[in-house]
């Protein structure tokens, strides 16, 4: 199966439609859940569930189809990464490929790596702004990464190139889009390339 290539060239100004998607927020902090809930409502989501611990997450997943899980990395009693691994590694679980956005309070590279290795789709650092959360949701919505299933890992392909988040977050202000013109001449033959290098080497030796 091949995923259709719907990813727009630029995700700037791209919107996501969250209506009728079931979103589960999992965080032990009631105020944090309330904040994320308000953000999602503002984005147009109308089916939002909440869980305060890992048991709540697993219970929600068994009871209904969840479309995306927004999960705290320190969700008790173990942590959100253990929950992510449990979801990904359970072969009988129809939610195995569920998009998982990990919220973490620390931006250490090791934390991001651990989240990636657990099978998370994306990480967002708390405290977060509506813009940051929105950009991560857009990113996941248009992410075309394949899934990897091997004895030690199940989840989105960890080998992917960060080209900056949608809408330019994380890019330098001076970065510009590069326009590449159409080729007007045929590619060089290998003999032509060799002769060019020979000429260059000869020039160096003189």
């Amino acid at each position, binding site marked *: 199966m091949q995923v*259709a290539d719907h990813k727009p060239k630029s995700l700037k100004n791209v919107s*996501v439609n969250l209506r009728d998607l079931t979103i589960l927020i999992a965080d032990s902090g009631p105020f*944090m859940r309330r904040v994320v809930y308000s953000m999602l409502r503002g984005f147009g989501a109308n089916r939002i569930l909440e869980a305060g611990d890992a048991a709540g997450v697993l219970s929600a997943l068994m009871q209904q189809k969840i479309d995306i899980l927004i999960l705290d990395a320190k969700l008790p009693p173990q942590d959100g990464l253990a929950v992510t691994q449990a979801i990904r590694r359970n072969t009988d679980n129809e939610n195995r490929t569920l998009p998982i956005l990990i919220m973490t309070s620390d931006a250490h590279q090791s934390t991001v790596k651990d989240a990636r290795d657990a099978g998370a789709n994306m990480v967002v650092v708390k405290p977060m702004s509506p813009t940051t959360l*929105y950009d991560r949701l857009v990113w996941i919505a248009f992410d075309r990464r394949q899934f990897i299933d091997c004895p030690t890992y199940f989840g989105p392909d960890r080998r992917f190139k960060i080209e900056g988040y949608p809408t330019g977050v994380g890019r330098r202000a001076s970065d510009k889009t590069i326009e590449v013109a159409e080729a007007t001449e045929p590619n060089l033959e290998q003999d032509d390339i060799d002769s060019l290098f020979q000429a260059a080497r000869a020039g160096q030796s003189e």
Partner: protein
Amino acid sequence: MSAKTPPNVRIFAVKTRFQELAQRPGGVPRDIAIQQAETGIEVHKADFVDWAEHELQELSRALRSVVAGQADKVRIDEIYDRCRQLRDTGTTMGLPLLTFVADNLCRVLEAVQNGAPYDAEVVECHIDALFLAKRHTYRNIHPDQVPEMTSGLHRMLERANRSIPGRSD
């Protein structure tokens, strides 16, 4: 991607329901969505001060019990969890200084969890700073605007980190 895939590795494409439905036309335009979210958060800002006050009172209570000689992992974890929640929400609710102080205290407590000795005065000093950061006059004050406070708290954190057993630096 390499041409050969090992036999015990399966690589497959997934298009989730989230992706299918999120890409539908008709969503709230990005700018409006973010603006609506910010408006939604604004409503909670008044509640946040009351909630933060309650959390700080609970932090003080937990601290008193530790000072009274009942220091144990459960109490430290309770202080840490409450502090973490303040850290996670402070900046979003317009109190970046509260997030800074709470973050510093979380790191001090992480040092304690890693074996550094528990110093009640350091924790108490942070809780005093949290009460200060919560005050209306400190709303929207960023850490770099109060360098005396931030450098003092940083020094406490550095001291805690240096006292972790086995730490070389």
